[in-house]
């Protein structure tokens, strides 16, 4: 885990002072509404339906137990006793008071945290594979590179007023658990023919109104060229990206307008022209960062049989909620924030305090947030699993549903968000109530359901195997269903709309019909997404809109 030095610490403290003064100027009437909006947004403060919403940065999803305890304290003292984990591995508070935000930021700074660039038209939190550093299939740990990029991007003099928001994800595994292909820039640590590790660079992916899969513009970039190349991409975007229409301002629109090949040429030309002045690789600085990500002090343990004689409930949890670890004797454990009674991604102050205690006891005091809104203890001794499971179960954090239908991504929706067209939390509830049988969920197997309350797509619906998008039809909430989306690996794809949207009350029924097609048509061991790819959308469409069902 990266630790601030005095430069990092001074920067966040000066940011608190700056923001405190900006808030003072606003409240004193010295700063207009519009001018303050841009300033508060780049500090993660939105004005939402009921109250301001504050988004706090969790760089690449990694937290210490003391940071989790600080979240608990802030939830208690400044909010309504809970927080919400987002799809950018960040945390949001839904009820802070605008005038108290500087005090919240000061508390965060005391535990090496901030809300810098968690919104606004700037480079956002850099995200990573949530299994980074422990995944057996990884070519290199992406997190030191994320931190390196985070520092470069923080208060960047040239790229802090971009045409639109800008998201970067880094992954070191072909599995791509960071949805990197739907980012403005996706960076993949890959090995070339000579066995050297460098970056494959993708540009122009994104969700929102115009969902797109990113294009590879460089197959192999030597590591030491990273910042120079990023600077070239960002400069081309900053100068050429559209600023006249907020819906056409993302880099994906520029890449599409000029074509990926031409865009690549523009970047390469800028990169070459800039070589003499580009930021040089700071090998010593990088080494300092990388040293914080060396493996923790693992014990020499062998893999052990943890399942014999244990209850089925535990075995289910082990199967679904734990993952292989590259070190023998350890497993990675998912804490499910998707129990049937919980709005997806929400966690209370009391739960956060307990999670911090458990992390100290079982996982080197570290917690990870995943982009699909769960938490991870990355380094748990296998022999501790049963005990940990019992503790998590008591906290309602052991629902054995990771990777199943009910492990859905869900934005806050119309209940909180002023952009939303429709609610999403009640739909999550409806789905949870309908599909509450674990055996049925296990029979369905791996399936990704993702839901957004509007086309801004915070819930990543375009890349859900099943996607649900809330739309407003004459003041009523309707839901458009897409099938076949995927965020991961070689298979990344944008989902296809199945047909006309369905009424609020019919969403779970519609999902049920879709699943029935899968159950009837699947081949031995075939996942939902693979059945969909084999059959196409037709049979699903036919079943969902069959007249006999409409009458019901």
């Amino acid at each position: 885990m990266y630790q601030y030095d005095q430069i990092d610490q001074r920067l966040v403290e000066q940011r608190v002072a700056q923001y405190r003064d900006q808030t003072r100027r606003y409240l004193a009437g010295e700063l207009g509404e519009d001018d303050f909006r841009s300033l508060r947004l780049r500090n993660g403060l939105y004005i939402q339906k009921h109250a301001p919403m504050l988004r706090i940065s969790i760089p690449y999803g990694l937290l210490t137990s003391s940071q989790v305890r600080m979240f608990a304290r802030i939830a208690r003292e400044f909010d309504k006793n809970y927080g919400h984990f987002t799809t950018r591995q960040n945390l949001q508070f839904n009820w802070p008071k605008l005038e108290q935000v500087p005090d919240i930021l000061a508390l965060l700074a005391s535990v090496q945290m901030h809300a810098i660039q968690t919104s606004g038209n700037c480079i956002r939190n850099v995200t990573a594979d949530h299994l980074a550093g422990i995944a057996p299939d990884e070519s290199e740990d992406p997190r030191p590179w994320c931190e390196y990029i985070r520092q470069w991007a923080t208060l960047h003099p040239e790229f802090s007023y971009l045409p639109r928001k800008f998201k970067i994800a880094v992954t070191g595994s072909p599995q791509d658990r960071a949805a990197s292909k739907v980012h403005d820039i996706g960076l993949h640590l890959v090995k070339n023919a000579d066995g050297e590790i460098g970056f494959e660079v993708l540009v122009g992916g994104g969700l929102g109104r115009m969902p797109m899969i990113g294009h590879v513009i460089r197959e192999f970039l030597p590591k030491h060229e990273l910042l120079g190349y990023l600077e070239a991409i960002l400069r081309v975007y900053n100068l050429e990206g559209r600023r006249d229409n907020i819906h056409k301002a993302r880099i994906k629109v520029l890449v599409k307008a000029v074509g990926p090949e031409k865009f690549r040429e523009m970047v390469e030309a800028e990169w070459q022209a800039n070589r003499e002045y580009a930021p040089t690789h700071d090998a010593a600085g990088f080494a300092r960062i990388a040293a914080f990500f060396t493996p923790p002090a693992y014990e020499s343990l062998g893999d052990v049989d943890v399942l014999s004689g244990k209850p089925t409930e535990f075995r289910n949890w082990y199967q679904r909620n734990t993952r292989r670890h590259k070190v023998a004797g350890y497993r990675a454990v998912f804490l499910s924030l998707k129990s049937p009674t919980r709005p997806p991604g929400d966690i209370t102050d009391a739960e956060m305090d307990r999670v911090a205690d458990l992390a100290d006891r079982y996982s080197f005091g570290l917690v990870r947030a995943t982009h699909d809104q769960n938490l991870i203890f990355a380094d748990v001794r296998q022999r501790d699993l049963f005990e940990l499971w019992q503790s998590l179960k008591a906290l309602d954090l052991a629902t054995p549903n990771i990777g199943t239908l009910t492990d859905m991504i869900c934005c806050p929706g119309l209940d909180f968000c002023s952009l939303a067209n429709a609610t999403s939390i009640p739909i999550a509830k409806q789905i949870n109530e309908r599909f509450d049988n674990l055996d049925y969920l296990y029979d369905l197997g791996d399936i990704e359901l993702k839901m957004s309350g509007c086309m801004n797509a915070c819930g990543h619906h375009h890349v859900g195997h099943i996607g649900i998008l809330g739309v407003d039809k004459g003041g009523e909430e309707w839901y458009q269903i897409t099938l076949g989306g995927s965020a991961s690996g070689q298979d990344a794809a944008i989902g296809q709309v199945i047909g006309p949207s369905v009424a609020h009350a019919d969403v779970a029924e519609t999902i049920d019909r879709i699943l029935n097609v899968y159950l009837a048509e699947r081949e031995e061991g075939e996942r939902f997404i693979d059945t969909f790819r084999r059959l196409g959308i037709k049979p699903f469409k036919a079943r969902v809109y069959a007249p006999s069902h409409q009458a019901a």
Partner: protein
Amino acid sequence: MRRLIKQREIVVDEWRHADEDAHGGPHRALILPFARWKEEKDRWWLWDGRLGVRLGPTDPVAALEQDFLRVSLVAIEFGGLAEGRGYSQAQLLRKRYKFTGELRAVGKIQRDQLFFMARCGFDAFEMPETTKLEEALLSIDDFSVAYQGAPDAGLSLERRAV
């Protein structure tokens, strides 16, 4: 008399924009819009005053590359916080084209931008009339640390080795 921030001091402006009325003083220092400079370059080359050029967000910086013997000020326009092209224009001027004259931010700018602008190489800030320049001046130093190397010779990651 217009006041502005220049090299970290509040001074009276010696320059006049071409579309402004002359208001006293000799005004042998004139800032021309880019389009007019392009058009009338030859005419102005031998004029005996100082010359500046004012760039809009879409004007190409590279077009000035051969002109810096004559042009000693470049003004870059900003239209509020949503306009960010000027930061890149400034970086290019300072780094790639080695422009060493006055680089002035003009238009709708507010003090919260000054730290970023200064680090991109701006050394003069012509702010809206209502701005309290004494307060704005302080914002250049909102941060005493930075992660990126920049034309104002700030810190870089390398300093961490200390």
